């Protein structure tokens, strides 16, 4: 009986994994597809045309990569920095309005970015933030920050204040106690927060479309027209690049987080 149940469980989970991986696999196939007409289950002709078309426009590709990654990296850094401070205030202090601040910090989860973008654009235009990188960064930040705050609330609680207290009585000021003791222990969760904030920003379409006007181009913006016009192989190349960059960022932050976790004794993140 037990073995059957084990088989059933594993079967369901494996099916789930297949459902996740299959669409990604079709993407890879489409990157190299030249012709894939109905009703074949496999492309008739392969070619590197789509790939070459995009890599051929090297300057464009590099500036696209550059602006997309730059924006999202800045957003991620800001999210983590602000997140650490916000989490500290909410976890270690009691003060008036604490619950209110906690609530509003999570509010972007519940107001769609479309609504916000259409509401804020007028004001951004007035202060000159529209069609600018900084405007896009701010808009992305508003929607990436709650993810970072959420993760850092957990991490800050886990690290706690006890070690800082010990550092204080041993002669460290509160600033030094944080920097030398708590900060290194928060690095793994900060890295996770970084990658989450990065992904959320990198994936934004509508916000960039509206606030960036036509000027700010990111992967998402460039991809959609090809998708809508049926140009599947080019759209797939962009999609593949998109995924590739994101996977690299995730991979790097995960490796670093693992290293730091080990250094910290691995106690807090199990």
């Amino acid at each position, binding site marked *: 009986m037990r073995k059957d149940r084990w088989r059933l469980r594993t079967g369901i989970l494996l099916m789930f994994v297949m459902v996740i991986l299959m669409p990604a696999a079709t993407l890879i196939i489409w990157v190299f597809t030249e012709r894939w007409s109905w009703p074949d289950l496999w492309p008739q002709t392969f070619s590197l045309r789509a790939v070459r078309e995009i890599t051929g426009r090297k300057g464009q590709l590099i500036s696209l990569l550059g602006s997309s990654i730059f924006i999202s990296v800045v957003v991620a850094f800001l999210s983590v920095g602000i997140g650490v401070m916000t989490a500290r205030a909410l976890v270690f202090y009691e003060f008036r309005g604490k619950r209110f601040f906690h609530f509003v910090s999570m509010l972007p989860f519940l107001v769609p970015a479309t609504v916000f973008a259409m509401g804020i654009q007028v004001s951004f235009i007035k202060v000159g933030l529209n069609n600018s990188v900084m405007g896009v960064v701010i808009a992305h930040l508003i929607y990436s920050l709650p993810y970072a705050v959420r993760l850092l609330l957990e991490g800050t609680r886990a690290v706690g204040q*006890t*070690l800082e*207290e*010990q*550092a*204080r*009585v*041993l*002669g*460290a*000021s*509160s600033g*030094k*106690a944080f920097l*030398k*003791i708590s900060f*290194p*222990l928060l690095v793994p969760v900060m890295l996770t927060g970084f990658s989450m904030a990065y992904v959320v920003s990198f994936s934004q379409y509508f916000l960039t479309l509206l606030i960036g006007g036509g000027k700010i181009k990111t992967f998402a913006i460039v991809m959609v027209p090809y998708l809508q016009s049926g140009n599947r192989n080019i759209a797939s190349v962009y999609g593949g690049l998109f995924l590739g960059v994101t996977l690299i960022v995730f991979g790097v932050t995960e490796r670093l987080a693992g290293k730091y976790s080990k*250094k*910290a*004794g*691995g*106690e807090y993140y199990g």
Partner: protein
Amino acid sequence: MSLQVEKLNVILGREAILHDVDLSVGSGEFISLLGPSGCGKTTLLKSIAGLLEPSSGHIYIQSELVDLVVPEKRGAVIVFQDLRLFPHMTVEKNIGFAMEIQKIPKDICRQVVGELLEEVNLAGYEKKKVREMSGGQLQRVALARALAARPRVLLLDEPFSGLDETLRQKMGELVRQLHHKHHLTTILVTHDKQEALRLSDRIAVMAGGRIRQYDHARMVFSADGTGFTCFPKQLEEVQNESAKKDHI
């Protein structure tokens, strides 16, 4: 007077924990703070160290009023019950922490760390990681770390909990030795009467947030070393009170 606590009142949240606590400890004296769990011993230590702010009262360390002095400048070092060794640092870095903060040159730090490790019988353990060591070893590291900070007052909050009886006694002796060698003004918090009697010059009996009795060790206990000589009834009352509270 190395430490003087005057009419200290401490409130945590809505509860009054310490009531009009008076305590004075002479330079180089070793006293025990004895009492049941929940009577406010840890709160008192934390207040002396500056980690908690009293609602009223004064604290003097080496005749200096420290009410407004930040914890890192008071020189009251606590060894906590949960040791609180820094997990991301080696033994050497843990012990040398206070010296690093004071920007003491690295070679002097290394020397002091080496000497302290020898005193606590952990010679050669400089590069060991915290997670590689046993409970008894970790407590000795915590002690060495506190000593390296050259405290004006050493506060030990039930530092031997979780150790078996033999190890407990050995650690107690070690503390007594170190106290003697470094002339440290020491307060040991414990709920173990035998330990208090064995190690300290004077004993402060605490219950319900007040010091009930403060006297030389032998005066606090009856001839056979079991019960308390003075105010035993009061102590019993307080113990019954806290038992009732737990039940609710």
